[in-house]
């Protein structure tokens, strides 16, 4: 619908909308996060949800203890290799459309523990992350802002064509343990290693 006509009508006391907008407005303002925390960042997430920072103002205060009732996963903290399969499994159990906020340096890339033998180098290797929230740990204000970004994203989604709604068809294999790492090391559907600009030059040098 034409935006000009829409505001004209609104001045005349007639409110028009589309099913798409109404639906997105509704679900954007009632995200139900999954209640789980992995490390120190979880403390900030908890602080955000409590009275001082009051996540409830943005409609995301109903932390659910079951993935079946949640549509937002806040990966708050260090994802160890031992925990990663469980995080993926929880994500798979959430109904679509579902969203992920990777909170803190650890969840994004492994952070200070990146080259450790037991820490995953970023949860975005296995599940699609909507908002990367940097910080170590991020302030509660930053958590609120990341939620606002996510709501903006939800508002622009088209319920008929957006991949979030056909997400169910995507595959998220749960990684398996091996002697030193997880197998597969990443899910090629959601993450690809960044292109290494030095790689071809080295091949020539060795050849």
């Amino acid at each position: 619908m034409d935006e000009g006509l829409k505001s004209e009508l609104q001045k005349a006391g007639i409110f028009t909308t589309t099913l798409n907008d109404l639906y997105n407005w509704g679900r954007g303002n009632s995200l139900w996060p999954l209640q789980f925390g992995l490390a120190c960042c979880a403390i900030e997430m908890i602080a955000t949800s409590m009275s001082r920072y009051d996540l409830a103002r943005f409609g995301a205060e109903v932390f659910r203890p079951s993935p079946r009732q949640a549509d937002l996963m806040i990966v708050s903290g260090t994802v160890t290799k031992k925990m990663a399969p469980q995080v993926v499994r929880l994500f798979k159990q959430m109904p679509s459309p579902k969203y992920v906020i990777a909170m803190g340096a650890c969840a994004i890339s492994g952070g200070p523990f990146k080259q450790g033998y037991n820490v995953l180098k970023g949860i975005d290797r296995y599940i699609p992350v909507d908002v990367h929230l940097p910080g170590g740990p991020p302030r509660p204000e930053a958590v609120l802002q990341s939620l606002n970004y996510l709501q903006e994203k939800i508002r622009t989604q088209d319920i008929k064509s957006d991949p979030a709604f056909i997400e169910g068809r995507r595959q998220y294999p749960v990684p398996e343990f091996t002697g030193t790492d997880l197998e597969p090391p990443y899910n090629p559907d959601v993450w690809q290693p960044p292109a290494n600009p030095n790689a071809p030059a080295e091949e020539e040098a060795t050849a």
Partner: protein
Amino acid sequence: MSEAIPHDPVLQQFPEVEWEEEFGTLIVPTTKATEVAIWLRDDHAFRLDYCSNVTGIDYLNREFKEKVKNEEGKTETIIHKDPARMEVVYHLYSMEKRTGPLVMKQRTTREKPEAQSLTPVWRSCELQEREIYDLFGINFTGHPDQRRILMWDEFEGHPMRKDYVEPFDYEWEPTPHDEILEKHQKGKVIF
């Protein structure tokens, strides 16, 4: 807590036990550990009924030189030898007498690290001994449930050992630094 616990009675009771002055610890032979532990727990003078901390240490074989002045004023070089070994350290307290800590060590070899589990004596050792088994690879005989606790069951190696070799998983990144930068310069990165 309060003043140091006198260790002499232990040495009198068990001649095999040694006292390590440097760190202020009892060195208990691994074959005698349970016996000494039960005695320390039940003896009326000690009553060490609480084991607050169990940890492991790994020493590689090493030699180091120290320069000291002797009586004539000349500098002398002393070679210290530190043999390879592994140790399990127990910090013991008495809740009843409000004393502690008394530190007790079991010393074992690096090649075949084995110690007696003191979980049957102090229940609080159970998880910590599992952790030591997981990270140092020390076997605890008599442990009721010895499994890995932090790493997954399929994991190979014991990462807190000094000679542990980490898996090679350095990746290319746009802004490398320190160790990762070094690996980049040598061109040693996976994808």
